[in-house]
């Protein structure tokens, strides 16, 4: 019990953010019409590419004086993250463009 309370106190800001973000996420997309399910999913998918910030930090402070597997993996993470972000937003935009021109 004490351990749980300690954990909560140490990470209280994070836990608050989680709790509120879950609520915001649910609130924001409830009642979405089914016509938008795919674009919404791929747009959200692109947002989850926010992991790219982690990739930038990782490679940004990597030691370049010697070659290491970690550096290669870090760069790979960056490329993957960018694929997710750029590809995700681009394909969502393409889909929505298609929806748009349909309007009579």
């Amino acid at each position, binding site marked *: 019990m004490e351990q749980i309370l300690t*954990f909560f106190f*140490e990470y209280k800001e*994070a836990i608050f*953010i*989680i709790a509120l*973000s879950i609520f*915001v*996420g*649910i609130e*924001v*997309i*409830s009642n979405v*019409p*089914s*016509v*938008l*399910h*795919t*674009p919404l*999913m791929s747009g*959200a*998918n*692109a*947002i*989850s590419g*926010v*992991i*790219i*910030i*982690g*990739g*930038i930090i990782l*490679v940004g*402070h*990597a030691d*370049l004086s010697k070659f290491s597997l970690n550096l290669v*993996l870090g760069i*790979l*993470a*960056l*490329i*993957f*993250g*960018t*694929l*997710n*972000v*750029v*590809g*995700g*937003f*681009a*394909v969502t935009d*393409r*889909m929505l*463009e*298609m929806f748009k*021109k*349909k*309007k009579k």
Partner: protein
Amino acid sequence: MDKVLGIVDGIEFTIGDSILELSYLVAALLFVFGLKLLSHPETARRGNLWAAGGMGLAMLTTLLLHKDGNGSGIPLTNVWIILAAIGVGSAIGWIVARKVKMTAMPQLVSIYNATGGAASMLVALLEYPNAIAGDIGSILVTVLGLIIGTIAFSGSIIAFAKLDGRVGDIMKPFMTYINLVLLIVTLGLGVYIVISPNPPAEMIWAIYTLLALALIYGIMFVMPIGGADMPVVISLLNSLTGIAAAMAGFIYNNQAMILGGILVGAAGMILTMLMCKAMNRSLLNVIIGAFGGGGAAGPGGEQGTIKEITLSDASVLLSYSQKVVVIPGYGLAVAQAQHIAHELDALLESKGVEVKYAIHPVAGRMPGHMNVLLAEADVPYEQLVEMDDINPDMSNVDVAIVVGANDVVNPAAYDDPSSPIYGMPIIDAHLAKNIIIMKRGMGKGYAGIENFLFFNEKTRMLFGDAKSSITKLVNEIKNM
């Protein structure tokens, strides 16, 4: 930028630090607004651009202003490497997103989801050695990020392979138990790593074992899931990628990552639940996967006779109708019949027939699959009607054309309690005055359940590939 503004918790912070955090706040707000706008048809495109703008901002300020623990920024050489990597990723991502066919959209969404999961997996893997022994909080988020990111990665790859027809469904009853054991072992090892007092440097073997276990679990977890359940799995994997990114956000104590990730996690969860609801099944039931079999053999025996319709009869029937509803399913996507379907509806409309498309929420292989397909074929948005809006009107419909759909129109959902799809909301095609079913043959639908709609006395079958059937039908009507 380097001017020290003050001290918090004994650490100096500069103008740059403050601007960086401010930009994260703006990015997080743009994510929220973007997602909000994305859920309304009129504003969706703008919403997507806002979210993209937020991402660009966060990337730029991180690159320029981020500092490591010693207060040094990102060296110029590293900046170049980062820009090169981002350049490569952007070029590939952009080209693929522009070039890929709309019919391959479920595959593409899965692949991009896999890359996000892979990035989270790698970040967690590389950050683990930097964790401080005994710091349960930071090791916990790293381990969770690794497990969830890895499952999202390997699961999405399998989902891609299945959607692309490279891997079939492999479902053996014992797999449920294997998966359960695998999950318990994976989580158990995760807990062990978190509570172990050993420094991370001595636990590298454990973290790589964990990686391998999670990779296998991701594969095993998606492998048995059938095509009809794909919409649920894709949105679930999407949600997992978001959660994994949020976990990485905790490693860096980065609020934009946390908020963005959790936002996607929650939104994906909602979508997952919506899909489950549309199939009247629980998430657990989908994952454990007991579809097929069951009531399939059910009543069996005498089911009545199948009546076929000739092309000329079908074209007369359609031409002299007032209201026609097309009910598309995955078969439409497989046959790539969306363009010709639009040609048919335009032709009928020119003859004064009112044509609508009735879209079931889980028709196809991903949420909203049919909408994307039909939009690609230029079918006006107003012609697409959701299940709940069309059903009350179904009895006034002269002809319901079922194209490559099966379970979503199976009346067993209403009247056969022994059927696996009993209770699932369906499109009430059986209420229409006439029903034309386009099918390749008498094979059962995905779920392997007998569809009594085929034996309905109002039903006429038009056998053949959906694309060629509709093409012939269009020509027939033109020549009338």
